[in-house]
């Protein structure tokens, strides 16, 4: 009898081209390589310089999301992309994909979107696959039971040329979550609280598997929100064992297996969840029942408190003091009722349909407070289309928010959507680093529901006051 294995170990083993030894890392096969405009150009250059072909264009898939504009007239009209270097990057991806035979969902494609939204949405991401992308939030795809992690551009070149990566086997960390989430509290609050507990470096060197009744009860969108932010705890990957929720989500998606191939895949996927008795190198238990809406107050995602909480005091920590100074906060201060200038709903963390529904449920029949700039950016063109079919766009627009084309947008300051210097932005994205959303921008990370509540009141608000 073989030793019981975890989900991660099963996926890892089945992708070992050459297992690791003391002297050399494993050669790991990659089933799906997603690329985008920002981290791929230098890797294509490396192929050209060495005269190499791209080994498996059929397992490589490209889109553009980071530097693309979100204004309709710039995407579909004749208006130029305002950042010239970004326009060049977009053109270069088009040229590279054409030259190397890679399928590209280009700027005007109805299936384009943030790479981590469209992988699952198209059914490209599947349980048991190895998925990589030159982007740290590739961890998102682990929600479907894939082993998915971000790589650098040199490694993008390795996968281009060999479809493989040299990897040391990471350690395993189980995060066991039990207890029912109460009304107004969601997956974003859960993952922020987990990061607050284990710390922004707490998962370094590990792959996290999220387990337990709370996780099993989440829908796929929520599971993706959780796995997405694994990297904010330092973990390369986050995974959730596939189950009926996963299979229902995937069934019928354009790139998912169909017919007999579906039945065969299902049989394989059902073998993936960890065996009883499989052990992890570390385990953390988390009770979600008492969880409240969470919000960050500092400059990393681990600096997080309940919306109604008080900023802690760490008198002897100069880094903490510097972070609070950047944010314009003081120890012992409450963040609730603090004025808000910008609200951003979107990103690969919270740009899916259920996120937009949550925000819209709170905005229906209400207005965005005077002086607040609210931007709603669907994670993909398909999410946009589905949201419009439900009339969510009308709710946002009537409330006074802007409704845009899909992309990374205000999650990071490289496509023209920026938070002005010194302004407070409640954002559903994943990083509150200094300058992430624009020079001097002050980011408060929160759930879509909380962000919408803040937009209505113009102040940091517990969404439970409005639901």
């Amino acid at each position: 009898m073989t030793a019981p294995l975890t989900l991660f170990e099963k996926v890892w083993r089945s992708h070992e081209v050459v297992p690791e030894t003391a002297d050399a890392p494993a050669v790991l096969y990659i089933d799906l390589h997603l690329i985008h405009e920002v981290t791929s150009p230098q890797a294509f250059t490396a192929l050209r310089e060495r005269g190499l072909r791209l080994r498996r264009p059929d397992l490589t898939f490209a889109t553009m999301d980071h530097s693309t504009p979100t204004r309709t007239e710039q995407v579909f009209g004749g208006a130029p992309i305002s950042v010239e270097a970004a326009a060049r990057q977009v053109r270069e991806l088009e040229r590279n994909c054409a030259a190397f035979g890679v399928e590209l969902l280009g700027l005007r494609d109805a299936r384009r979107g943030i790479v981590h939204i469209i992988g699952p949405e198209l059914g490209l991401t599947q349980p048991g696959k190895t998925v990589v992308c030159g982007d740290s939030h590739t961890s998102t795809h682990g929600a479907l039971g894939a082993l998915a992690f971000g790589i650098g551009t040199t490694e993008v070149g390795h996968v281009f040329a060999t479809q493989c990566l040299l990897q040391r086997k990471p350690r395993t960390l189980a995060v066991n979550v039990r207890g029912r989430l109460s009304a107004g509290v969601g997956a974003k609050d859960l993952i922020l609280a987990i990061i607050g507990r284990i710390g922004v470096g707490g998962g370094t060197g590990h792959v996290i598997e999220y387990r337990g009744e709370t996780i099993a009860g989440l829908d796929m969108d929520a599971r993706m929100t959780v796995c997405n932010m694994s990297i904010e705890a330092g973990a390369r990957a986050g995974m959730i064992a596939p189950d009926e929720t996963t299979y229902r989500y995937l069934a019928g998606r354009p790139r998912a297996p169909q017919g007999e191939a579906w039945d065969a895949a299902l049989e394989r996927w059902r073998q993936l969840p960890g065996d009883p008795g499989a052990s992890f190198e570390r385990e953390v238990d988390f009770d979600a029942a008492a969880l409240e809406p969470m919000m960050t107050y500092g400059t990393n995602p681990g600096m997080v408190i309940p919306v109604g909480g008080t900023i802690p005091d760490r008198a002897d920590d100069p880094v903490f003091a510097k972070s609070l100074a950047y944010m314009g906060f003081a120890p012992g201060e409450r963040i609730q009722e603090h004025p808000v200038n910008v609200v951003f709903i979107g990103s690969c963390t919270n740009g899916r349909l259920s996120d937009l529904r949550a925000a819209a449920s709170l905005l229906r029949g209400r207005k965005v407070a005077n002086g607040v700039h609210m931007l709603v950016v669907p994670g993909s063109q398909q999410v946009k289309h589905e949201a419009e079919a439900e009339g969510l766009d009308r709710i946002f627009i009537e409330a006074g928010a802007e409704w845009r084309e899909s992309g990374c947008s205000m999650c990071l300051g490289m496509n023209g959507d920026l938070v002005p210097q010194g302004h407070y932005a409640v954002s559903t994205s994943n990083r509150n680093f200094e300058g992430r959303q624009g020079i001097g921008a002050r980011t408060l990370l929160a759930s879509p529901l909380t962000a919408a509540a803040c937009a209505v009141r113009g102040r940091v608000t517990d969404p439970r006051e409005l639901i």
Partner: protein
Amino acid sequence: MDPIRTLRSRTVVLAPSDIDTDQIIPARFLTTTSREGLGEHLFADWRYGPDGAPRVDFALNQPEARGCSILVAGHNFGCGSSREHAPWALTDFGLRAVVSTQIADIFRNNALKNGLLPVIVEPGAHRWLIEHPGAEVTIDLASCTLTLPGGETVRFPLEPFARYCLMNGVDELGFLLEREAQIAAYEARSAVA
């Protein structure tokens, strides 16, 4: 890649913990399609004032920092994004090693592929280094040791294969390309569709 065996340099210190890749190289500089020239934008938002003039109080702008190739940084350096622009910016600036108590996974991988040494030392030595900017230290790859000015040496862990590649100037892609037969056999047996 040029082989690296030893590095001897004075250190430059950035004490904060959790220095993320958005600080190392802000996203607005990622629209480049080449690897060169990023050193100018290294730590841009910390290094330059709103008027674009260098801030004199920032460590990397001080005259003593010129020519230093070893950066001593706070715990959990390089967290955040997978942008390889971060090690490109550091090496373009002239840095060859980062010393910390923890270095984020993706950054560490990217650093190794660009001849930038990630050196993890225990908290005692780290504290000493943080408190003594400009200390002359030696990093030796053969013995995996960092030697402090007083002659005291501390060991650091380094994955053997990465060390081999660094010391011999071997690039990993060449190694992978030599595994072609095994890769083809894997594809045949697992019928990767």
